[in-house]
């Protein structure tokens, strides 16, 4: 059997490991557009901040691909002929597969702002972005960050840690809506201000232009304009699936997959940022574009490509990082529209701002702007949320319950 995987990110590596667990013999071919060894996208901000050295970006597993019987092809996939089970590659011609995994990941998108596409304006999404930003960070003084997603804030923290003057512009009325609830966003904004970051929310960027002195001039609607030496933009991501255009593989913004990571085509799987799979909350097709979800999906896909029949019980969104001296983390549903009850731990709990969220009597999520110790509560809650277990205890007793529970199995 010939297994082919498009992409070499988190989902791809998890799939390879998992595939090899069940099938030691069949060939695996990995096709990657981005050259070089597989690296960890989520670590880019840590390298930028100087917390982690550059070489630590590369996954140790990636240089062992040979020993796992993986053939690596650096090339672009032009199209998929699903009827014949053949990939058309840019340089390497046709490649036949018995089973295919699309794990080609996503790319950062440019927002519709006039003047956004010019040198000196970056994403923080690829190793190339990192390389170029490293130069800017060491040479320049003022950065404007447009967007306030997870990566944008990490970029802001990196810049701030390295002594740059940082301004953050967010079009919405609060920061990180996918990671934090309203109060958490507010706390985060306060915390960033303490570190000297200028935070602009509800702010529309009209146009970016470069002045003769090399500085960027950023025109804001109804607000005073600002200047910057360079700009980092975080405005969401889109799946790398252009090559699916002429195939029968169903897709929209991402590729819908079932609980087995299977697309509508019988021998084609998808996982990671390109895939829209089931969630633990019963959604049929959700794309998180998150590292842990990619790992989980890849694991399922790899096993099933090797002939297993393992069912994914759905993804659960989770985020965590440390920035501006607080730990930011969340899991599941925490925005007021998605929940019907919540509990905020008091100061004595030592957790910081920690909100436990309920819907229909079940714990459905949690969000945190607080201490590292509190993160373990999220970890312990994961199986509770995943398995939709009812906990009929006051939240203050939850920690005790979660620890005792383990031994009662």
């Amino acid at each position: 059997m010939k297994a082919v995987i498009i992409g070499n990110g988190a989902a791809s590596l998890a799939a390879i490991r998992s595939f090899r667990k069940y099938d030691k013999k069949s060939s695996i071919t990995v096709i990657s557009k981005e050259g070089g060894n597989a690296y960890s996208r989520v670590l880019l901000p840590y390298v930028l901040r100087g917390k982690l050295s550059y070489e630590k970006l590369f996954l140790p597993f990636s240089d062992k691909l040979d020993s796992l019987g993986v053939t690596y092809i650096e090339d672009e996939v032009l199209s998929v002929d699903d009827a014949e089970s053949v990939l058309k590659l840019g340089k390497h011609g046709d490649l036949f597969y018995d089973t295919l995994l699309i794990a080609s990941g996503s790319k950062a998108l440019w927002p519709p702002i006039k003047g956004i596409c010019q040198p000196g304006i970056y994403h923080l999404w690829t190793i190339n972005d990192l390389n170029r930003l490293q130069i800017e960070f060491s040479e320049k003084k003022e950065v404007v960050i447009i967007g306030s997603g997870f990566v944008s804030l990490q970029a802001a923290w990196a810049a701030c840690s390295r002594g740059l003057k940082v301004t953050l512009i967010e079009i919405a009325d609060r920061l990180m809506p996918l990671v934090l609830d309203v109060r958490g966003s507010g706390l985060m904004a306060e915390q960033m201000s303490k570190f000297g970051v200028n935070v602009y929310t509800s702010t529309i960027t009209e146009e970016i232009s470069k002045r003769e002195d090399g500085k960027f001039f950023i025109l804001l609607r109804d607000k005073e304009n600002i200047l910057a030496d360079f700009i980092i933009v975080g405005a969401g991501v889109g799946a790398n699936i252009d090559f699916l255009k002429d195939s029968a593989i169903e897709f929209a913004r991402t590729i819908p997959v079932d609980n087995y990571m299977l697309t509508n085509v019988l021998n084609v799987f998808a996982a990671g940022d390109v895939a829209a799979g089931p969630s633990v909350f019963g959604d049929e097709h959700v794309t998180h574009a998150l590292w842990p979800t990619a790992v989980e999906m890849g694991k399922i896909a790899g096993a099933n490509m090797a002939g297993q029949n393992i069912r994914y019980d759905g993804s659960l969104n989770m985020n965590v990082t440390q920035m501006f001296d607080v730990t930011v983390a969340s899991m599941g549903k925490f925005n007021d529209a998605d929940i019907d009850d919540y509990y905020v731990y008091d100061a004595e709990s030592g957790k910081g701002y920690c909100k436990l969220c309920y819907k229909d009597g079940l714990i459905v999520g949690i969000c945190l702007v607080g201490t590292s110790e509190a993160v373990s509560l999220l970890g312990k809650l994961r199986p509770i949320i995943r398995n939709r277990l009812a906990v009929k205890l006051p939240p203050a007793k939850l920690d005790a319950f979660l620890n005792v529970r383990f031994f009662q199995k």
Partner: protein
Amino acid sequence: MKVITLDTSKCVGCRNCELACAFINSKETCERKFSMIRVNHYIEEHAVIPMTCLHCEDPWCMAVCPSGAITRDPETNAVIIQDEKCAGCKMCILACPYGNIHFDAELMVSHKCNLCEGNPRCVGHCISGALNFEEIEDFNERSRKKVDLEISKYMKQTCKTQEVDSNGK
């Protein structure tokens, strides 16, 4: 492979394990925050729960670590974190369903039990016998014996009751 087993029916929460763990890790203090094993006493629940890394067969922390800092020590079978590779992203803390990964706020890296390279000090300091470092088969054997004892006691009890019944007739 040997694992640390935890018997909640014996733990009294004396915390000698925590003190020893904190010292072997920090080399200078027994403060609890430096300990990888944590004992919690829940008085209302009448429960004392010692918790330390179980070195899972299929560790989710290891799978999810984006920097490949979590590996398995081939000698001890311990799931270990390499400080120098850890980015401090806390993904592993979020991943662990038992709360057994902790954060070193000074080094800004995750920390966990590494089985003290095959000589776990927590076990050597467990004066109650609740912690053991043993082959998992031995643990299972002990557990089986415990259940057998329960059954035999139950049987005795039932037989006694029956005797009384028959005498009563």
